[in-house]
């Protein structure tokens, strides 16, 4: 009987097969506990306020109204705004330059270079910040030793006016190799025929880089930029670690996430910290969505 029905049956799957759902169920469970529930709870909590008398009461969007005019929150937002406008282009530009150099085939020791530049990605951001923090420092740091040895008076990277670029350097150091590899992988995927066609048309190396490589890289560049922008808004680990070494330069509301962190431990501000966290999450969603729409539009052209 099986022999008769087997050849005809297998092509069509039954309309309601629950096997797939069973396999994806564990993911949905942890996703619910680890993503949906916290975001849902925080969103709900952000609509309340704690009063000394009367306890927790519903206040609608009051926390969001407060956040929109909170100088500390706005200070953090504008700081990460400046940070991303400067740091992201520098990092992506460097990553692009290095990826193009590697792909040109005109550099020796490629394997070592690729590994060496990627290596910081494996370093925990806490260790990266500690390490750079010590290097920046004047106790046994390189900057202090350089000043002592040469009589120069280089400003301390941990001083108030230099600390943001100093953090930018740590973040660039951590992620330039990661972005380079993403771009390099995309370059490697460009079909050889495109180069050959360009060569027949008489294009030189630089012309090829602009006319063949850059257009082919556009999706990967978008992804790399998008994730870097999101990362900038979430800036926390590096300034939090460096704060110990530079307490005068890095306030507790230096970045929005540091502010949310500080508020979460203040009993009267817990609901407000939820609102700040939700706003930050929303910014991420808006950035991601906008970038995706722009990519889609470019691709359909």
């Amino acid at each position, binding site marked *: 009987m099986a022999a008769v029905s087997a050849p005809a049956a297998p092509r069509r799957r039954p309309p309601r097969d629950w096997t797939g759902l069973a396999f994806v169920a564990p993911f949905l469970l942890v996703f619910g506990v680890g993503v949906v529930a916290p*975001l849902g709870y925080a969103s709900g909590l952000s609509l309340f306020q704690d009063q000394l008398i009367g306890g927790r009461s519903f206040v609608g969007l009051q926390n969001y109204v407060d956040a929109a005019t909170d100088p500390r929150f706005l200070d953090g937002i504008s700081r990460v705004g400046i940070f991303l406008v400067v740091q992201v282009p520098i990092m992506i530009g460097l990553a692009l330059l290095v990826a193009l150099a590697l792909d040109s085939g005109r550099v020796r020791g490629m394997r070592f270079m690729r590994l*060496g530049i990627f290596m910081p990605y494996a370093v*925990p951001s806490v260790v990266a910040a*500690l390490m750079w923090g010590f290097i920046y420092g004047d106790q046994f740091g390189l900057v202090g030793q350089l000043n002592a040895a040469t009589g120069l008076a280089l400003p301390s990277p941990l001083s108030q006016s230099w600390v943001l670029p100093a953090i930018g350097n740590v973040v660039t150091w951590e992620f330039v190799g990661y972005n380079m590899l993403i771009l390099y992988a995309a370059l490697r995927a460009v079909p050889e025929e495109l180069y050959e066609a360009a060569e027949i048309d008489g294009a030189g190396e630089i012309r090829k880089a602009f006319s063949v490589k850059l257009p082919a890289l556009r999706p990967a560049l978008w992804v790399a930029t998008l994730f870097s922008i999101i990362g900038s808004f979430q800036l926390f680990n590096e300034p939090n670690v460096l704060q110990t070494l530079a307490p005068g330069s890095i306030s507790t509301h230096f970045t929005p996430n540091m502010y949310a*962190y500080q508020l979460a431990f203040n009993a009267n501000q817990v609901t407000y910290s939820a609102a700040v966290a939700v706003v930050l999450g929303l910014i991420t969603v808006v950035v991601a969505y906008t970038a995706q729409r722009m990519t889609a539009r470019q691709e359909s052209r």
Partner: protein
Amino acid sequence: MSDTATTASAPAGEPAPALGAPEPRQRRLTSRGPRKKRTSLVLQALMVLMVVYTLLPLYWLTVNATKSNGELFRSNGLWLGSEISLWDNIVTTVTYQDGIYLTWLFNTALYSVVGAVGATVICAWGGYALAKFDFPAKRLVRAIVFGAITIPATALAVPTFLLFAELGITNTRLSIIVPALVSPFGLYLMTVFAAASIPDSLLDAAKIDGANAWTTFWRVSFRLMAPGFATVLLFNLVHTWNNYFLPLIMLNDPSLYPLTVGLNQLNNQVTTGANLEPVYNVVLTGSLLAVVPLIASFLFLQRYWQSGLAAGSVKQ
């Protein structure tokens, strides 16, 4: 082994171009090989500068982890001191405060291994389901989960803390492990890998042989997905090993800290003078020891993260 890895990273799914990265590379090597290009001095210099930039801090850390506390302040930061105290520093680090460093190392290993292995298995099941099965609400599941790829873990730390505080489960090992089990990007990668590496005909054959879905997964599909599994596992390992914000906000018992939080707290005490002994050598050596396992695994598992990155470059 290497054959399987290449197959898995060059799938037939929609986002094809960059996923096939390893393959075109071979094509190009053969077609371009004979015409050897001249080394460009400008490009070579640029690359050397970049490598110096990325490796110098790691070199600095290694050199300074060989110095005693006094030597740190006396010697040139870019060169060895008059004596090598690396071994002394390691012993001091692991025995400091009754071996608190080893506790942190154990915690990090526990959180990373349980969190990363768990997350990767969960992603493998889910990716298998999304790639190979039709089920109710599949499109909805895809849309929600892949939409969540862009939500960074840092954005979830404060909300997760607030929820867990309400439930009274902060300051527990579970409060670190459970959030580490979620990896939307891992699910995405496993879906791509599963679609590329498991032929439908093989699944049909297993079905005809009477194998149930569970047995088929472990005996047939999982083996074919193994290279993808290794890639996702490596990324999840790095992610949990380096996790800082969540444990910082969630834990206040030092014996539950992972290395990242512990090291930073130690640095806090040393720098602010709260800790009467200025044990900078412990902070430096502890940092170095915390980096070694990850760098080693990256060096040994190069093929896996490179194919994973290739897949990541087209994720949207």
